């Protein structure tokens, strides 16, 4: 997945967070977005993910030379972030089945168990994920982002709330994704930054 952004700017209430951000990312790259707290990393990531419209500039997306429009971006993109909330009244398996159904994918119970296994969550819990710990919830979010094997993976603070083993899971996912796709990570963590091939510093004012 290739992404190229030119002149991206974002304003909230007429107040500019950042302006004139240019970058491009190629397939096989792990791209880091770094910057102080409140500098606009998450905002930029949301713009890249098509969740927020930029106040200025444009981004183009392509897979092997064919353009992808923002409306269809969600099909080829996975996204995990602390500010994402899953459907907490459903169990883990129900959540996964739900995402698969909305995305039009066939996921049997063995696929679901494999996904839960991959991120190190128990496969036999039937209670709503409302009761999950924050680290467990973060692992659920990882499943949410990789379920449809997207060519583009956007991760905002991916290791927040995770233990050592959880971090290994994240970096494993990143390494796997790097083989065929693209990863963009918004982070301040040194270990995350070490995973990145290149970084972009956002200099927004808080």
């Amino acid at each position, binding site marked *: 997945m290739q992404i190229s952004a030119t002149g991206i700017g974002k304003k909230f209430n007429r107040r500019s967070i950042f302006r004139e951000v240019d970058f491009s990312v190629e397939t096989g790259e792990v791209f880091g977005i770094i910057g102080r707290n409140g500098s606009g990393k998450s905002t930029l990531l949301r713009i890249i993910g098509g*969740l927020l419209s930029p106040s200025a500039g444009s981004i183009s997306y392509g897979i092997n030379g064919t353009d992808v429009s923002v409306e269809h971006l969600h099909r080829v993109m996975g996204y995990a972030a602390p500010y*994402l909330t899953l*459907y907490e009244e*459903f169990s883990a398996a129900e959540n996964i089945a*739900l*995402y698969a159904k909305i995305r039009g994918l066939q996921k049997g119970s063995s696929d679901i168990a494999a996904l839960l296994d991959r991120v190190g969550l128990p496969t036999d819990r039937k209670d709503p994920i409302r009761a999950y710990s924050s680290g467990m919830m973060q692992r659920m979010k990882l499943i949410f982002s990789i379920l449809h094997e997207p060519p583009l993976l956007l991760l905002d603070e991916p290791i927040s709330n995770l233990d050592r083993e959880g971090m290994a899971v994240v970096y494993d996912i990143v390494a796997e994704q790097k083989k065929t796709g693209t990863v963009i990570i918004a982070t301040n963590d040194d270990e995350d930054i070490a995973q990145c091939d290149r970084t972009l510093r956002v200099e927004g004012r808080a």
Partner: protein
Amino acid sequence: MLKQAFAIFWKDLASELRTRYAINALLMFVVVTLAVIMFALVGETLSPGALTGMLWVVMFFAAMSGLSRSFVAEEERGTSMTLQLLATPTAIYLGKLLFNLLLVLALNIFIVLLFLLTMDQFTVAQIDLFWFVILLGSIGIASATTIIAAIIAKANTKGTLFPVLSFPVILPLLMAGISATKIAVEEPMWDTVWPDLQLLGSYIVVVITISFLLFEFVWKD
């Protein structure tokens, strides 16, 4: 896209059946409202025409208290971004519209049945036309309020804003619905009821079309 929409519809339905946030309270709301009307009308004889107006008032307020839930819940729980990452705005709108449609139909059928059972003075001259008008009216209410619900879900004072924004938009529908229901209840004649049915139909088409065009702007931050 239709598949996506149905998946979202099922999600809302499953979530509602699991939590029963809305449906119990809504049914009680209807019962209470009807009880208030009956107490207020003890000993009065009202024409079926006047009772038709009451019926629509109850249907309007039931819609106002129930139909914003599907969007507001998404926004309050913070799951709207999750949904945004799963499906196109069109599919989401369609899914929510279907859910609201089901909810409003169930509610209105419940209301009408209670009305027919409890109000002896409420006699309907042509029952099939009557139900047809209720059906059209319900579709109209669902289509107009779904986009308004999406708007108010993004605002601060969600609960009070919903009827405020809905009323001027829904008023033509209410008037046409009341007029058509009155005709069905009092003296059904095809040539008098036809313009109202046309109006209801075209209102639904216009509102749904415009909602599809505008929903993306509302939905995306």
